[in-house]
């Protein structure tokens, strides 16, 4: 069972270039999220999807996502800026306990370390 898989693990991007970070999960989880992690700031939610076909933006501009199916949740940097240098973490969680309003734990990928120069 692979869990949450992110590719690539590392990448260097030039300012103004675009790039897509890949995220796939094989647990049939409905909820998927993207976080960025910066030193001393913990994880910050960027984008969120409750199900295939739906997305919810948490931070303004610079990022875009699509959720065409349950398994994949790619994150696109439209025109990269140095401020987007970070570790990007993808997570998924199972909504089956939603009826009881009991949140379940999120499973994370290993992350993509992105540097924008």
């Amino acid at each position, binding site marked *: 069972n692979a869990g*949450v898989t*992110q590719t690539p693990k590392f990448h260097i991007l030039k300012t103004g270039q675009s790039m897509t970070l890949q995220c796939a999960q094989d647990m049939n989880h409905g*909820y998927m*999220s993207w*976080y960025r992690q910066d030193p*001393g*700031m*913990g*994880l*910050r*939610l960027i984008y*969120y999807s*409750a199900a295939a076909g739906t997305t919810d933006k*948490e931070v303004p501009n610079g990022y875009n996502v699509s959720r065409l199916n349950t398994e994949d949740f790619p994150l696109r940097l439209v025109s990269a800026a140095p401020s987007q240098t970070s570790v990007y*973490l993808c*997570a998924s*969680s199972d*909504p089956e306990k*939603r009826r009881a*309003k*009991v*949140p*379940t*734990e*999120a*499973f*994370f*990928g*290993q*992350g993509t370390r992105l540097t924008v120069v």
Partner: protein
Amino acid sequence: EDQVTQSPEALRLQEGESSSLNCSYTVSGLRGLFWYRQDPGKGPEFLFTLYSAGEEKEKERLKATLTKKESFLHITAPKPEDSATYLCAVHPGGGTSYGKLTFGQGTILTVHP
């Protein structure tokens, strides 16, 4: 706005020296508090979920507790392999927020042999 503050930012212990990590939170209608462990270069790994004040959970040398304002992660007789960053996250109330976590900045734990 939901807020999570972890302390200390860094903690150095000798092997066998027990201690506690703190997670203070401000959230409207807490539905769950999560503890994660993160090793360098890896994604966070789930440890515990706490749902209500007074709840406690244990796993090996770790014990998590929850009050209405904070959570503690107690580490008993730690070993060098417990060295990692420990992250606390809260899940707020409200149906539209389901699945969205607010994280603290983490505590970097180093256990020396």
